[in-house]
């Protein structure tokens, strides 16, 4: 069964129709890259799936949980939406780390807050906190920042900050991890470290959706590529199909700009 099912999603801001009926599905453990020029609706699509924006129309199902359904919207309470959100993680273009917390605290803050809902929290508070911190350290090791656990975000490079934000998203154990142009805010020489971390996650079979402008990276890491144009999916398929042998004229024009 598909872990992510997006059906006929529409979204407008005023008279600006950003998404005009997007539909696709994604299998567990696969990596999908969404490419397309600025303003084609990539980021809005991501924001609709992660509930940062509410779509106008359509249906979004993550791992069997309906996170949005325009037919049945009234059934969702705020708390349900908040819980449904937990099945998806999002890494932002601009990191959005919490400046007043150390690296490890950034990674563990939300997990600790959610642990308070556990029925055994009061009895085992100390053990639970220790476990969360150990898991946080494990994630920091994974992104190569264990030695920075007590540093503050302002003391890190952009690449290091983005790696912390990946660890922070992973700490919530999401079913799917979304990346919104994770390297666009970075100096070119720093993008490599992020791409390496994402490749590592792909090797661990993490389901991921990546909005990116890094074509060669998208080709290497993805199982599947979607090319978006003007709020619709203009072309989709394997990297070989979409990037190496595009059929659509718009895809060809878009890709040729990258090959120059």
């Amino acid at each position, binding site marked *: 069964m598909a872990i992510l099912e997006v059906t006929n999603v529409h979204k407008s801001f005023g008279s600006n129709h950003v998404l005009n009926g997007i539909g696709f599905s994604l299998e567990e453990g696969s990596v999908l890259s969404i490419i397309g020029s600025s303003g084609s609706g990539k980021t809005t699509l991501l924001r609709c799936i*992660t*509930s*940062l924006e509410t779509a106008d129309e359509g249906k979004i199902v993550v791992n069997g949980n309906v996170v949005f359904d325009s037919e049945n919207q009234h059934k969702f309470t705020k708390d349900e939406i*908040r*819980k449904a*959100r*937990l099945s*998806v*993680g*999002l890494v*932002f273009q*601009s990191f*959005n*780390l*919490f*400046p*007043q917390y150390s690296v490890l605290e950034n990674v563990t*803050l*939300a997990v600790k*807050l*959610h642990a308070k809902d556990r029925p055994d929290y009061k009895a085992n508070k100390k053990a639970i906190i220790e476990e969360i911190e150990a898991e946080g350290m494990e994630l920091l090791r994974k992104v190569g920042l264990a030695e920075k656990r007590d540093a*503050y*975000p*302002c003391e890190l490079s952009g690449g290091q900050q983005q790696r912390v*934000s990946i660890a*922070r*998203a992973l700490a*919530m154990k999401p079913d799917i991890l979304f990346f919104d142009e994770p390297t666009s805010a970075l100096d070119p020489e720093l993008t490599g470290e992020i791409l390496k971390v994402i490749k590592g996650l792909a090797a661990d079979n993490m389901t991921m959706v990546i909005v990116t402008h890094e074509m060669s990276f998208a080709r290497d890491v993805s199982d599947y590529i979607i090319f978006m144009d003007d709020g619709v999916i203009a072309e989709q398929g394997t990297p070989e199909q979409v990037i190496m042998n595009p059929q659509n004229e718009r895809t060809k024009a878009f890709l040729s700009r990258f090959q120059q």
Partner: protein
Amino acid sequence: MTEILLNAAQGGFLNSEFAEVSISLLDGLWENIRLFSSTLLFALPLGLIITFGSMSKFRPLKYLTRLFVWVIRGTPLMLQLFVVFYVPGLIFNVPMQDRMTAALIAFVINYSAYFSEIYRGGIESIPKGQYEACQVLGMTKGQTFFKVILMQVVKRVVPPMSNEIITLVKDTSLARVIAVSEILMAAERFSRKGVIWPLFYTAVYFLVFCGGLTLLFGWIEKKLDYYKG
């Protein structure tokens, strides 16, 4: 030897006019300090509640709060002192029993309105991305505000708040208009007898008080300097 010193002290300082004025002004200052600290105690949290009102998505509440802030900021504090002190007696026939209480009510209302605007500026200056990060991490609104946003707001509002709080120190003297026996009123008791200098001498007390606060706020800013943003 001790006796001589004691006599000298008694004759020279303790019995002097200067000592009498100093002690009497200190008594007056004590009233200013009481008004100052009680105003802070109530106005700091009340300001935050007003902020929530003025940022509410429920429009009637939002506009009502903003109307309140406009009236309070748009009229003199001195006038507000008169209103709080005289209006209950004039209109409702329940005269204010205690001048200090009346002054405190007026000050708390006035300063919480100013504080609320400083808080609002601080809250609105926090980037949207901070809220979105909390949202995708499944935090509740309360957790988002108290665990993530508030500390960043505190850091941002320390400089404007120190400004406002130092203004409050000097504003406490306005309580004199409803005859709270604060430091300026104490000094005026001497000037009425023809001794003018105590009036100017009060400046020393204010300078010391504000100097101490300046040091305190500098220390707080330094404490919050461990992170940027």
